[in-house]
């Protein structure tokens, strides 16, 4: 069980399209404590997903610094960031992005193929991860034999099977109905409270955001405001 503090300092991100400069993040500062669950909200184009990708090491900032635990991502090479990501970050996407020809267990096992690990140990970890998300009995089902909610659970199992320090979720409930969304959010809360995972979740849904410890609102690449959720903070403290 591990978690990491995330610190984003004076981060700038500029994209170039047809020689046109498109600033997305403009000197953003944000600190997320180890084991904290933070929701990122804001209008489209405010830089939420970009921030998520920077924290996950999928992209590099134009300026400023991104630190996750002891790792300063801006100083790493692409190869180093990829290797680091495999050990420290778990990604969850809106559209699940499971490999359709693999079973649930094989999808969850994918990140473990990057480690020197005995097949038995891999199998054990996969079973544990799928049991945590409540799909211990669906290991041999392929994605097309699962509901949307179950697919997202498999994606969550894939994100936690390597025991990462932080989970980065990009609109994880965006494609689900209200009931299933609640179940997914319960699961994220469980991973945060029981397993101490730091979670950074991008969402447009205020209800989903209300399940986090803190809601961070972005506007035009800057932190507009923050809201502390006293209920979840208290629950986390109790847990």
């Amino acid at each position, binding site marked *: 069980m591990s978690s990491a503090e995330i610190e984003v300092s004076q981060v700038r991100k500029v994209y170039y399209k047809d020689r046109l400069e498109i600033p997305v993040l403009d000197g953003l500062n944000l600190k997320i404590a180890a084991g904290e669950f933070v929701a990122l909200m804001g209008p489209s184009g405010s830089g939420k997903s970009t921030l998520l990708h920077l924290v996950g090491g999928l*992209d590099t900032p134009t300026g400023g610094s991104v630190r996750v635990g002891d790792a300063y991502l801006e100083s790493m090479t692409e190869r180093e960031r*990829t290797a680091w990501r*495999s050990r420290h970050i778990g990604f969850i*996407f*809106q559209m699940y*992005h499971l490999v*359709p*020809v693999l079973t649930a267990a094989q999808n969850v096992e994918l990140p473990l193929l*990057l480690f020197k690990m005995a097949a038995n140990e891999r199998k054990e970890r996969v079973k544990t991860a799928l049991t945590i998300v409540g799909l211990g009995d669906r290991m041999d089902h392929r994605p097309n034999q699962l509901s949307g909610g179950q697919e997202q659970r498999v994606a969550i199992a894939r994100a936690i099977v390597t025991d990462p320090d932080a989970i980065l979720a990009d609109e994880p409930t965006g494609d689900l109905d209200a009931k299933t969304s609640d179940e997914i959010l319960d699961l994220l809360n469980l991973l945060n409270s029981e397993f101490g995972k730091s979670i950074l979740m991008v969402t447009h849904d205020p209800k989903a955001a209300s399940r986090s410890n803190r809601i961070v609102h972005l506007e035009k690449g800057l932190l507009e405001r923050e809201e502390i959720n006293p209920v979840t903070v208290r629950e986390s403290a109790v847990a």
Partner: protein
Amino acid sequence: MTLTLVMLKNFRRNPLRVALTAVAFALPMAIFVAAISMVVALNEASANTEKELRIGVHHKTSLVNPLPEGMRRKIEGLDPDRTRLTGVCGMRWFGGRVPNTQNTLTSLAADADTFPTVYSDTYMQPAEIAAWNKDRQACVVGMNPAEEYGWKTGDRVTLESTVPPYLQLEFHIVKVLDNPERANFFWFRRDYLVESLKEKGEDDPRCNIFWVKCNSAQSLRSLQKDIDALFANTPDETKSEDENTFGANFIQMAGNIPGLMQAMSVVVVVIVAMVAGNTMMMSFRERTRELAVFKAIGFQSRKVFQLVVGESLLLALGGSLLGIVPISLVLWLHPIPMRQMGPVGSLEISWMAAGISLVIALVVGLAAGFGRPTKPCVYEQQMRCGALSKD
């Protein structure tokens, strides 16, 4: 589970597309192997005839224009001491076919006395030569017509000519050749033809060609010039060619067949390979997000690249082998008799052609894999476009 298994499982995504892509590789590769094998066989046949040191002397206008049989003596007169030539054999086209069949055999009437010497590559034994000399109806046949019609030495066979006056003659087989370069020929005695024509009221002892067997390559070149010079400015001007050139020109009367075959097969393979390669690239493009997920969960670009290239290589090579292996086995184990291809007796596998087709498949497979954007910078671009974030 291993990455190889992931790669193999990917073929189950769209089995119909995978099957069609494999077939798209298999068919042109099979055709390519067969066509190039034919080109190789033609080239080898040319090389083999070259070493026989024979000159074909025919009318300068065309092979169809007959030459007087007396020309043989004049050609022999160029070298009375036989220091340059071994023999001269006049031949006339008969164009015979087995009654009630369609295939015209390469059947020629040859001077009886010099045929065994000039065509020493028929390897006639003394007893066979004696039978050839003794029997007016004697004939020597290649292995393909013998196999097709079930002929053997000692058999009596009948051919009907496809040229006027459409004689129907009976022959006695004194030898079935086992030389693959001579697999399609049917030779018989010209005196028999001349006498049979006389019986029909046609006194026409002319020849279509004289074959001159030379002692050396040097003699061949000098005789070639001397023969054409001898008949220059006469009603029967000649064109003398070595057998290799004659064979090539004869085949090319119907166009540059080897060149055309080579060019067409290459064009077909290149076009189909491009189409199949593009199909493979499209199937990867459809999976851009999925491949980006592999990056997101920590797979190095090199690993993703291996996955993509491995898959496209496997499909290209697998599909190609599906075409190459059966055609190679067929041509290797049972060479196909080529009855209408002159010097080429049978179509055998050219391992070089099989090798080239595999290399083409390898290149297409690699190109399709490289065609996929697998470099990190491109992934990052895809991330910016929100490939992973939205549907």
